[in-house]
């Protein structure tokens, strides 16, 4: 493959050219209610050529990899149409490397029937849990992605990117009241990570039933404590996206708003993105521009300390590339993305955090989140009211919203332990979704959070 890619690259007349080819095998199985809903597998082969001419990008994506020279020519033609200024692209030492992903239990060697029987057991646990369980949705999915990357500077990287996960969802119903309990486990790992999840299956069923009798949280402003999984979503939505410098690098006003050294939070706030933490879903040795991933401080002691870059945004802002140019697959160009983003641990215990909260919400696990850069929202799977320093009743429909320039300032306590729960799902941006990211962190206490919901 290397020879073919390098031969095609040598035909390019662009200032920079790269080829990424991917071969993906995947399989899936899914139960909905008592029946298997679907089961199957797929094989995908495809590639992308990206070329830079006078600051303009041209690209070509394809499934037929037999004519790479023609694709290179197409990408160069498009780039010439676009380019009108000087190209700026951060220099990095071209890497030649081969990364393999040895799997403890290789899911490619496990039969569809075994994959099916593992989730069938989880499904039975849900359906047999209680007579208020109406239905279930239990899905298994795996993919093994082999990536070949070569660029005109001489870099050549072969990378293996496995991903396996299950989603376990229970639906409870009482009259018109329909509630859901959801658990997921995923990892860049072998089949073993999705085995032995009987307790998670039971937990999802229990939650679906319990939420049927839980009231919706009353809308208003509260002191909120987020658990590690939700803290990860908070770091990601409330701030992470704003640190992606493709929103900043050609935007003078945004540059002023996000100038390094600006205070965004209190002294105890540290936010980090690190694509090099072993074993997490957002982890890779190199990003999709051949740049080594690393630990990047975004906020240090409450001060804006850094941001996430591609080679282009780094060059245009006069900063170092950070290894954050990622693409979800060969049909997409790499754009600036997060990897594993988290709030660093602080010094408090959970007891310290809760004891003086008169009225608050302990918000747990996530359903999702979204941001428009300044404003953001994210949803907890469920929560408990905190009353007079103690955990009180279970509540549902816990949706939190805020404004980055206010909410980060309102973080006043951070717990002393970081957890990285191996959850599924991923991040969406620019039509590329879902991209695996790591979501975790400590427990975080935030004052004055608007919690949506109906007013009583």
């Amino acid at each position, binding site marked *: 493959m290397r020879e073919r890619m390098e031969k095609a690259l040598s035909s390019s007349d662009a200032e920079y050219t790269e080829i990424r080819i991917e071969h993906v095998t995947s399989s899936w*199985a899914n139960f*909905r209610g008592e*029946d*298997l*809903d*679907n*089961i*199957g*597998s*797929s*094989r*995908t*082969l*495809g590639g992308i050529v990206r070329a830079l001419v006078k600051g*303009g*990008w041209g*690209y*070509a*994506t*394809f*499934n*037929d990899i037999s004519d790479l020279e023609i694709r290179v020519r197409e990408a160069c033609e*498009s780039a010439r*149409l*676009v380019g*009108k200024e000087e190209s700026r692209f951060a220099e990095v030492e071209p890497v030649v490397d081969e990364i393999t992903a040895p799997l403890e239990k290789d899911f490619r060697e496990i039969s*569809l*029937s075994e994959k099916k029987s593992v989730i069938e057991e989880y499904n039975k646990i849900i359906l047999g849990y209680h007579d208020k369980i109406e*239905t279930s949705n239990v899905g298994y999915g795996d993919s093994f992605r082999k990536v070949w990357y070569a660029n005109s500077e001489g870099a050549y990287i072969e990378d293996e990117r496995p991903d396996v996960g299950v989603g376990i969802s229970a*639906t409870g119903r009482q009259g*018109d*009241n*329909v*509630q859901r309990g959801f658990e997921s486990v995923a990892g860049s790992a072998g089949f073993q990570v999705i085995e032995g999840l009987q307790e998670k299956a039971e937990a999802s069923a229990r939650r679906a039933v319990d939420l049927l009798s839980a009231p*919706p949280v009353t*809308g*208003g402003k509260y002191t909120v404590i987020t658990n590690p999984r939700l803290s990860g979503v908070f770091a990601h939505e409330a701030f992470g996206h704003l640190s992606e410098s493709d929103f900043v690098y*050609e*935007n003078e*006003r*945004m540059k002023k708003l996000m100038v390094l050294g600006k205070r965004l939070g209190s002294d105890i706030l540290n936010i980090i993105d690190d694509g090099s933490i072993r074993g997490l879903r957002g982890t890779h040795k190199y990003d999709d521009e051949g740049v080594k991933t690393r630990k990047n401080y975004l906020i240090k002691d409450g001060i804006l300390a850094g941001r996430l870059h591609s080679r282009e945004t780094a060059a245009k802002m006069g900063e170092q590339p950070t290894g954050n140019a990622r693409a979800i697959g060969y*049909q997409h*160009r790499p754009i600036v993305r997060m990897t594993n983003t988290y709030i660093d641990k602080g010094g408090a215990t959970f007891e310290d955090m809760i004891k003086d909260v008169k009225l608050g919400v302990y918000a747990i696990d996530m359903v999702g*989140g*979204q941001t428009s*850069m*300044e*404003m953001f*929202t994210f*949803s907890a799977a469920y929560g408990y009211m905190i009353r007079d320093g103690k955990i009180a009743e279970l509540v549902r*429909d816990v*949706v939190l919203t*805020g*404004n980055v*320039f206010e909410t980060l300032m309102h973080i006043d306590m951070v717990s002393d332990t970081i957890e990285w729960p191996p959850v599924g799902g991923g991040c969406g941006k620019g039509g590329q979704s879902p991209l695996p990211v790591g979501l975790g962190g400590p427990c975080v206490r935030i004052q004055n959070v*608007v919690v*949506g*919901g*109906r*007013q009583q």
Partner: protein
Amino acid sequence: MIVNRLIEKAMRKAQGAQVTLGQSESTNVSFEDDKLKSAGVAQSIGMSVKVIVDGKIGSSHTTDIDDVDGVVARALEAAAFGSPAHFEFPGPQEGPDVEIYDDAVVPVTKEEMVRIGEEMMALVKAYRSEILVSTGAGKSVSKSQFANSAGMEHTSETTSFGVGVSGQWIRGTDILLAGHGFGWKKREIDHAAIARKAIELLKMAEKIAPIKSGDMPVIFTPEGVNVLLLALRLGFNGKNVFLGSSPLAGKLGEKIADETFSITDNPLLDYANGSGKYDGEGVPHHVTPLIEDGVARNFLYDLDTAGRAGAKSTGNGVGCGPTNLVIKEGDTPYEEMVKNTKEGLLVHNVLGLGQGNPISGEFSVNVQLGYKIENGEVVGRVKDVMLAGNTYDALKEIAAIGDKAEWAGGSLLTPAIKIARLSVVGK
């Protein structure tokens, strides 16, 4: 055709088979932050096989057109452990006529797309030069072949074309994002009108208007109507109905909305994104009323779900989701709807839709782009505001429906809708 060869191969071991082959080429041009940024061409090809062996279903997919043996073998392997089939593949049937191909899309060049982007940008810049503009245009041409072992086969060719423009306006720490876009299967799009619509949305947001928490009337623009529709998309899905997770299960014939409210699934609108002669299982498309004068009429089914539920496929395969949704016009002009609102919220776009428990009808969303109405006038944009309610309750409290349906994206045709009261949580 290749698909017939695959059917033949599959039928050596299977009792039923279906094969789809799709090929497409699309071209896109995009401007980011006031500058032409990228252009490119995407070619794709894919083959899907579904088989029934001993009454069980297996499926598989590949992008490798030479992998004919492999893709069939993997579908057969999956069928050994597959779910029981509750249907038979449909025989030859002629679908209704609907326009999904426009010759005028094919010759559009990248240069023309660049010009469209430049013109849209110039319009927004002429309104306010400090607004940072991103725009884009794209087209695609796709071909597909479909065949099954019952003798149903068809080929189709479809085009699509779309443009979009958005502006980012930063004042202090206030970041305003507003834009507009439209795409369908036809070349004919007035891109200047799209840009003018984006400018109108920006103009109405020039001032920021504080809003107090409380229950108040809420007007959803055609785009904003999506907030109410998510629950219906899930609730009318035949699979959710069959499994009992839809709150509408068992409610056909019952009044579930105000009598002014009617909505249909319509795959026969010329050039709409969800249109076509057949669904993905070779079943001819037809119009399906979902709610008529407030009464629930039909759920949407694909072949297998229909078989399980004892219903007939409505041509919504695979997956039982809607094609294009059309909401019936009412009799209130939009201007009057606003004028009759003493204090309320106009909602265009939200953040966080679908988080939480959407199938129950509950929504609790951040108003990403919405406006305060005071004494019958839009006075400015609202910020840091949550809107919460339940679709099924809201549809019973419709205060007015606009008299003119508009496209909100290429697969929803709806007028603006005013709900008498919803919960708004501000600062």
